[in-house]
């Protein structure tokens, strides 16, 4: 009784607070706790969010999908890491996705997702994301939300200045963050200077299927190429890369790579280089790399190991590559929607350096140089600098744009987001971020057409923002309303892994194209059983192939005999369902692999190597129907030399 009283008391108190708090209309000053802010992020049950946000999973190797403004996590898409949740990287069909020239690699470090564009506007066909550790780029379909392709980048190391797309998705880039010998060779580390290289790779995209092709590598001096941004509109055809460690220090970089007052932005005319390569320019150099492609029709990934890449010496292509000086070890580099302004974020300074594309072109025309670096002309700083955003903040990292004339820059050290005006470079607003903000994202905020309603910051340090969960905490993101003159902090939400960067897009641009199930008639999987009549078990030496099907709520077959200790059993499971969101799962006791989650109309394969005699169960892992608990079967495993006949059944109709 007492508890009920307390509960009612608490409830009415709560209602009073919620009902009466913040009747004031002035929401901008009322803080994140105000009820009007709660309404802005509230998506009622059953309704959909306005935007998709695709967050890099960082060291999870994957990509997570969120809804905005609610901050609800919708899905985790496995990309560079094995994912036992659905069998990615474990199933026979998907293992090839993780092949590299170093062999099978079960993990990756995902960094910067970027959505494909047409005419500089997000088109929602694909999303690309780079892997930093073993340099790779992945392409994910925004129809199936599955990873369809991964290409390795040879001769590169620390693939960080990646995977940014040009405005018609002609190319994506992969810059080398850790300068290395190119070609790789055994040599003393302290002889790095002048010997190491920083190749910038240009990957061309086939517009019909999105397939990636390593077109050429620009063999740049051995600085650390950190981030990149394509020119757009008037500067379309150029790509800009920041660099640090122009000191070429090989040790204690935190001190030794910060000696020079200025490092460089590399301005690269990729159109000119592509033309040069097309006409036979460049030299074919060594470089082994894996190219993994998933075929939606056969539902199977294959690896092609490729050899050799066209390398271009930047000094050999007149007018294609220049350096522009940037103060204080720049990190992010961003281009405004008009393509006119190039923003260098000097991470050890308080200022942003803004360069003018027009001034850059003029300086090139006038050969207004300030010396050269390894034969690459350095444009005179004063000739290309347009202005400075002097914010007073510390540690600027990244900038995005709202399409309404403003830039938004994160400051890592002073933990804040600063809004400033393009053209006058004056600071118009600033709000704290909790804590130590890295990237920020505005939907389309790195394209010609930003959708400037929300901005979210991705923060490296969480500390007290949520209930403590031991020493390890998920990172935190903060959502801001940027529709007004002043930014308004709306919401905190936890993110998975480390979302270095994110790409966001209006939901209307992709949700109607999202696939609901795979058409069974278009299933061309080699081991599919497209009806129960086609189910069977075949032995080939000690390999046993089970062609099985699922439907609510049974497997066919569900009894199998004649498996022997030492066999390798391939369970090829086809889900015969043809309805949205009716997956079935498959798991068998003692399998040293994972479960598989099979979407309607799909076939997936997992292996099982039984080591003990007995009768062993398998079952459906996804609660599929009222009779899900009944969705199970048995495999009889006999001794290695037993004469148990291979046979299988459903409902006691045995076949052999």
């Amino acid at each position, binding site marked *: 009784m007492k508890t009920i009283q307390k509960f009612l008391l608490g409830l009415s108190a709560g209602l009073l607070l919620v009902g009466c708090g913040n009747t004031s209309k002035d929401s901008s000053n009322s803080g994140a706790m105000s009820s009007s802010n709660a309404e802005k992020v509230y998506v009622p049950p059953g309704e959909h969010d306005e935007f998709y946000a695709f967050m890099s999973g960082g060291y999870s190797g994957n990509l997570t999908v969120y809804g905005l403004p609610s901050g609800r996590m919708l899905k985790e898409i496995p990309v560079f890491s094995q994912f036992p949740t659905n069998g990615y990287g474990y199933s026979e069909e998907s293992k090839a996705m993780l092949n590299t020239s170093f062999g099978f690699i079960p993990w990756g470090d995902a960094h910067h997702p970027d959505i494909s564009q047409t005419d500089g506007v997000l088109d929602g066909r694909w999303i690309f994301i780079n892997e930093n550790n073993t340099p790779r780029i992945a392409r994910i379909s925004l129809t199936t939300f599955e990873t369809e392709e991964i290409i390795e980048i040879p001769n590169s190391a620390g693939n960080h200045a990646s995977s940014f797309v040009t405005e018609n998705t002609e190319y994506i880039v992969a810059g080398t963050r850790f300068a290395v010998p190119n070609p790789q060779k055994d040599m003393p580390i302290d002889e790095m200077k002048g010997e190491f290289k920083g190749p910038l790779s240009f990957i061309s995209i086939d517009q019909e299927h999105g397939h990636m092709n390593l077109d050429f590598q620009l063999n740049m001096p051995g600085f650390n190429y950190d981030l990149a941004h394509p020119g757009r509109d008037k500067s379309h055809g150029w790509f800009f890369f920041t660099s640090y460690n122009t000191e070429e220090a090989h040790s204690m970089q935190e001190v030794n790579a910060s000696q020079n007052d200025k490092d460089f932005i590399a301005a690269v005319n990729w159109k000119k280089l592509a033309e040069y390569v097309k006409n036979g320019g460049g030299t074919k150099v060594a470089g082994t790399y894996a190219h993994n492609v998933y075929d939606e029709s056969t539902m199977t990934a294959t690896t092609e190991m490729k050899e050799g890449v066209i390398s271009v010496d930047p000094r050999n292509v007149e007018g294609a590559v220049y350096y522009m000086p940037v103060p204080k070890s720049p990190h992010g580099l961003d281009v405004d929607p008009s393509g006119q302004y190039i923003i260098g974020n000097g991470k050890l300074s308080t200022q942003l350096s803004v360069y003018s594309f027009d001034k850059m072109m003029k300086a090139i025309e006038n050969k207004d140089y300030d010396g050269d670096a390894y034969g690459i002309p350095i444009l005179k700083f004063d000739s290309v600098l347009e202005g400075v955003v002097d914010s007073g903040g510390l540690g600027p990292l990244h900038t995005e744009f709202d399409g309404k004339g403003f830039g938004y820059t994160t400051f890592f050290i002073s933990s804040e987001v600063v809004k400033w005006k393009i053209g006058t470079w004056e600071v118009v607003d600033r709000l704290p971020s909790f804590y130590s903000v890295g990237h920020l994202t505005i939907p389309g905020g790195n394209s010609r057409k930003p959708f400037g309603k929300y901005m979210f910051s991705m923060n490296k340090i969480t500390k007290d923002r949520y209930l403590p969960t031991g020493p390890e905490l998920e990172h935190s993101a903060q959502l801001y309303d940027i529709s007004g003159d002043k930014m308004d902090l709306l919401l905190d939400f936890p993110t998975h892994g480390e979302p270095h960067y994110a790409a966001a897009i209006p939901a209307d641009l992709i949700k109607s194209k999202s696939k609901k199930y795979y058409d069974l008639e278009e299933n061309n999987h080699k081991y599919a059983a497209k*009806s129960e009549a086609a189910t069977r078990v075949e032995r080939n030496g000690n390999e046993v192939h089970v062609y099985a099907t699922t439907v*609510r*709520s*049974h497997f*066919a077959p569900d009894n199998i005999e004649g498996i022997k200790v030492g066999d390798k059993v391939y369970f090829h499971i086809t889900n015969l369902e*043809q*309805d949205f969101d009716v997956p079935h799962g498959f798991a068998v006791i003692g399998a040293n692999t994972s479960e598989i989650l099979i979407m309607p109309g799909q076939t997936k394969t997992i292996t099982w190597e039984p080591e003990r005699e007995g009768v062993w169960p398998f079952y459906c892992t996804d609660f599929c129907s*009222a009779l899900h608990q009944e969705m199970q079967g048995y495999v009889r495993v006999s001794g290695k030399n037993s004469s148990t006949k291979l046979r299988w059944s459903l409902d006691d109709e045995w076949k052999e």
Partner: protein
Amino acid sequence: MKSIIKISAIILLGFAMACGGNEEKKDKDQIKISNTSNTGKKETTPKATQKTSTEDDMANIGIGPITSVEVGDGIDEAMAGRGKEVFNNLCTACHKMDKKFVGPAISGVTKRRSPEWIMNMILNPEEMIKKDPIAKRLLVENNMAVMANQNVSEEDARAILEYFRQIDNQ
């Protein structure tokens, strides 16, 4: 107290579901529980509200996109052929011609149900098992196994109907 009654009812229901219909099938079964509970409580298996007559059944066109179907006197063999193909691929995991499997046996269905009802059951199963009196009854009779929506096109559903007519005319 009340909850104990509820729990025992659920347990009994579970037994009834697990063992119902097994008696005639196997002599080896060691556990024999009759369907009427020995505690004297009423059988709790849900029942359809009322039994409908065959005439009523044939008048029922079901709920869904199909309001009337033109059925010829003869059989369109080509259409029935397509129907057989689609049926074999998408339906046989649960329906056999001459025996009850997960769902009812198909043989004779065109004598029991209207052509519209058959097509609506294929095309709109979710709503049918919620609202249509026959479909509701069948759900209970078939161990609560729901009819799956296999996203068959109207054209293919019509072809399946023609295949059923062909079977029933033989």
